[in-house]
């Protein structure tokens, strides 16, 4: 949740965008595109798809920001648009995704994974680390989209149940129930691959 200064800043920025200020829109993009991209990669499992989704999200924001009434938080609206677009795309690629291992966030041209450049990691550890992230993302992609959405919003994006309920339009009971299923599914999928809490001890 934002503090008062954050809300004021966001509203000023949105008002400037609504009055047609192109620089304000660029600022809005700079402040929010990472959030959209992160969520889209986690939900689509493919960086190219996530880039397309992010582009579409901001095009939609650009066209519809004049009608945004600031009754809800902009971030909530942005997440909702992102989830809807990811859901549409996932339907289209559902069959393909079953047979194709999802690309990982480190393999896309034009993206730099900051963790790859961490000096403290030895090459072996770095390879292990990258592979682990690939496995985790692939496991995430095997979870049903509606469970995965809630899992990502809660455990990866750190939102509260109330915020997730607002974004997804579900009640908090449904959020909790889907989170139960998502977490259990993740554990079961990783267990199939021999990954559990003991795996990380060393």
């Amino acid at each position, binding site marked *: 949740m934002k503090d008062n200064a954050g809300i004021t800043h966001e509203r000023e920025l949105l008002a400037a965008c609504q009055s047609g200020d192109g620089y304000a829109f660029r600022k809005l993009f700079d402040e929010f595109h990472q959030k959209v991209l992160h969520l889209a990669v986690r939900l689509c499992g493919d960086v190219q798809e996530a880039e397309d989704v992010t582009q579409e999200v901001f*095009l939609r924001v650009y066209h519809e920001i004049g009608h945004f009434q600031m009754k809800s938080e902009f971030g909530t609206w942005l997440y909702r648009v992102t989830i809807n677009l990811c859901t549409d795309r996932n339907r289209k690629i559902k069959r393909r995704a079953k047979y194709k291992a999802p690309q990982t966030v480190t393999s896309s041209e034009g*993206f730099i994974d900051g963790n790859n450049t961490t000096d403290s990691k030895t090459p072996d550890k770095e390879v292990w680390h990258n592979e682990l992230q690939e496995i985790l993302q692939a496991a995430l992609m095997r979870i049903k989209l509606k469970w995965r959405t809630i899992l990502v919003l809660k455990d990866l994006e750190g939102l509260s149940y109330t915020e997730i309920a607002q974004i997804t339009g579900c009640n908090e009971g449904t959020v909790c129930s889907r989170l*139960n299923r998502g977490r259990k599914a*993740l554990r079961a999928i990783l267990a199939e691959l021999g990954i559990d809490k003991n795996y990380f001890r060393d």
Partner: protein
Amino acid sequence: MLNHYLHKQKISAYIDGELNPDATKALEEHLQACNSCQAELTAIRAGKALTTHFEKPEWQASEKLWARLQGAQSWTNSKANFPQASWDLKLGWLSILNPRAPWLWAAALVVLFLIARNMMQIQIPRQPENDNRMPIQAASAFAIDFGLYLDALKNGREPVEFERQYGGKVTTYERAKARASFDLPTLPKMPEAFELSEVQTLGGSCCFSIQLNCVNDSERIIIFQQPKEHPATFGSYKLMKMEMNGRNCFKIKVGRWTALSWDDEDIQYVVVSELEADELAQALRELM
């Protein structure tokens, strides 16, 4: 049993500290007595612990994405339409009168036209006064629309808006399954008395419903499934609540057609047939 289910549903909220003190205490008491919920707690906690190993890379793609955004066709075409003022905000809900959104006016006129037309053509059968009367659920409204549509077709009247609202496409079960964002039951394994005659996907405003036509001794049973979070609906009907195969469901009779609907966990089911409600319940017991 019901308490067990309710407690089980709250386990993630308990782990995340999102339960109030009373609910936390009640759940902890239940956990002490319930092995199944304890196992559930362990599994969910382990799942949550695994999510801490996901890392958030710092993507540096802003310039590339910004360039793509600026190059998008609809961006360059629409620059002249970029909102010039924030008078929408000052007007609040009155911003619907915004002359820059003529499609809203058109949509409102279409909706008014449809409502007026339906009111003239359709007489909804009145249910007897009864305390069990419930506000209709979205899936039931869908069923009524379909029942009215079939009835109108049978009696040679002009069908109501069903086809226009829910455009259907005959497809294979596998294709329908691939398009659906929810799990279909394993209906192709039909009991002997049934055969799956046709599968259709029905486009709604933001989702697909699946329509399965089953034939049982020459009686047709039409089963609709749709995700609960995107119910397709219009109308505001009232109907009877009843129990069927141990589930709470909603029933309405439209002409010779009986429509039943009920909620599963994430899916709404709607069943339409010329059978009576108890015959239909019997058939569904065999089928599902």
